[in-house]
């Protein structure tokens, strides 16, 4: 067996053992199972949802949960359960896409700032510190107000709102790794910047940033729901958990189930993401490194 295949095998082993450590803890296992189920529901929504998300029937508008409509119907007689299942598509795709792009850009900015230092680092750090003065929800609200409502601007706004966090964390990781002996040795061996950053620094900085991104996805789901609640997110008839609650808030006295169930799904999903993230932090043993940011 050559050295390369040995390393590949060890990597696979490590991945398997982390996955086992996360899924075998009761909290991580339940949370993981719920999240997998939610993703499957979102993917196969047309086959799973009992009704189409936009099937209106005014004869059964605002009806309480029943055998035909397990979670009741909304003001247009649409099935709340079906809309929640389709809404998972919107909420998950918006938050996951936004956070992925944000993590990617944040890592690039943070790594460049931490590695090269100098004026660029000063500029990045200053902007990051300044954006700290605006809470994420405010930043997102204003960005959406500027670009106009809709799913794309929601994604953009969420991505920008969390960018500072990932930039800061990556920069801190790179700075602390830069002083390690093996990096100094690589520099002295005459390695190029690209080789040092991509081969040695980034792989070691990756885990905390990814986990932080995973936890931020939970916050992003709440942020997406909040923007949707203000009518700034998904536009009708696209179902999203926030938009469902927005239209339901007018009927809170008459048909409270329209807002209760989507909110409950948001809460449970965010709890599952937090529990899963916690289990991941424990399995990877990176709690101390997450605090550096």
């Amino acid at each position, binding site marked *: 067996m050559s050295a390369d295949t040995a390393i590949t095998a060890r990597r696979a082993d490590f991945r398997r053992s982390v996955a086992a450590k996360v899924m075998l803890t009761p909290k991580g296992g339940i949370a993981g199972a719920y999240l997998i189920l939610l993703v499957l529901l979102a993917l196969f929504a047309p086959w799973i949802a009992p009704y189409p998300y936009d099937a209106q029937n005014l004869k059964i508008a605002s009806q309480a949960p029943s055998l035909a409509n397990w979670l009741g119907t909304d003001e247009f007689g649409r099935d709340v359960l079906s809309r929640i299942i389709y809404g998972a598509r919107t909420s998950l795709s918006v938050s996951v896409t936004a956070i992925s792009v944000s993590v990617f850009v944040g890592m690039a900015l943070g790594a460049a700032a931490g590695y090269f230092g100098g004026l660029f680092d000063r500029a990045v750090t*200053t902007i990051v510190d*300044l954006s700290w*003065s605006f809470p994420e929800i405010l930043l997102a*609200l204003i960005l959406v107000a*500027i670009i106009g409502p809709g799913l794309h601007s929601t994604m953009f706004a969420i991505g920008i709102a969390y960018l500072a966090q990932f930039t800061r964390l990556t920069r801190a990781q790179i700075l602390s790794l830069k002083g390690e002996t093996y990096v100094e040795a690589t520099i002295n061996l005459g390695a190029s910047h690209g080789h040092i950053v991509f081969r040695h620094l980034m792989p070691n900085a990756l885990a905390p940033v990814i986990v932080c991104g995973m936890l931020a996805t939970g916050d992003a789901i709440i942020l997406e729901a909040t923007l949707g*609640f203000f009518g700034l997110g998904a536009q009708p008839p696209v179902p999203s958990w926030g938009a469902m609650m927005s239209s339901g*808030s007018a009927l809170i006295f008459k048909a409270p189930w329209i807002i209760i169930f989507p909110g409950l799904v948001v809460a449970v999903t965010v*709890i599952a993401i*937090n*529990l899963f993230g916690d289990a991941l932090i424990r399995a990877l043993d990176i709690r101390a490194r997450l605090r550096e940011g």
Partner: protein
Amino acid sequence: MLSYALRRLLLLVPVFFAISAIVFLIIHLVPGDPLDSLARIGSSPEQKQAIAARYGLDKPLLEQYFLWLGRLLQGDLGTAIVLRRPVADLVAQSLPYSLALGGLALLFSSVFGILAGLVAAIYKETRIDQGIMAGILFGSTLPSFWLGLLLILIFAVQLGWFPVSGARNWTALVLPVLTIGLGGTALVARVTRTAMLETAQKDFVLLLHAKGLPALRIQLRHVLRHALMPVVTILGLRIGWILGGAVTVEFVFARPGLGTLLIRGLNQHDYPVVQACLLMLAMAVMLGTLIGDLAQAAMDPRVRSALQ
């Protein structure tokens, strides 16, 4: 200590200018000419010119910024475009509502957060600890507008204890304070618990146990005092978060505060109002962080000596 406080205050000056520049620029990035919302439909170019001159919109951007900044430093926040009133008046009118809500919510989350964290740490790894921490995890993940609607449903509609919305008297404050406070409680409790458990590992605590002091007294008089340091920092940092939450919660409860003013300004493209609200909120975040740091320096001699 005093010199440190002064130095920190002075450092806020450049930050203030940077934030004011950002706030000024954000509004000018909005697509659409501010003139369109000022001038009546069908205005002639000359009329538009006159309006532009009156609001100073015909000058270069940099000059506009310095003019705006100059007026700002004199306490003149401009005139609201839609509401046609001085923005300073609007802000002065809504600020007390937001301050009352934010202040009480902060007080609520400090008191109950520290209490919950304390109890959880004393009974660590028992049912009580697990129950408190599970409840807190649940409370911290609820979207605040949803929690607000739920509280309205239970306590205002079903039980009729508190008004659904508005700000007529103090009872109208209860539900909004609960809504924001519950979210903050979670974080404070978690930080308190972690800090208490970490402090309990220290040598001086071992010594206190060796001296034969009662365990509860050690926890309350010695461990808690040390553990409060990070809590104070978090509380300072959380002021911004509480204000951000206040924006949504004020909207849900139709409270005439800064958040409601901001949302209305955003919806009506009333730039001077949005600028003023943003500036106030950002300044509050900065001051919150500063107060947190100063409180920590006042409480902890080690931080003070490190600053000298």
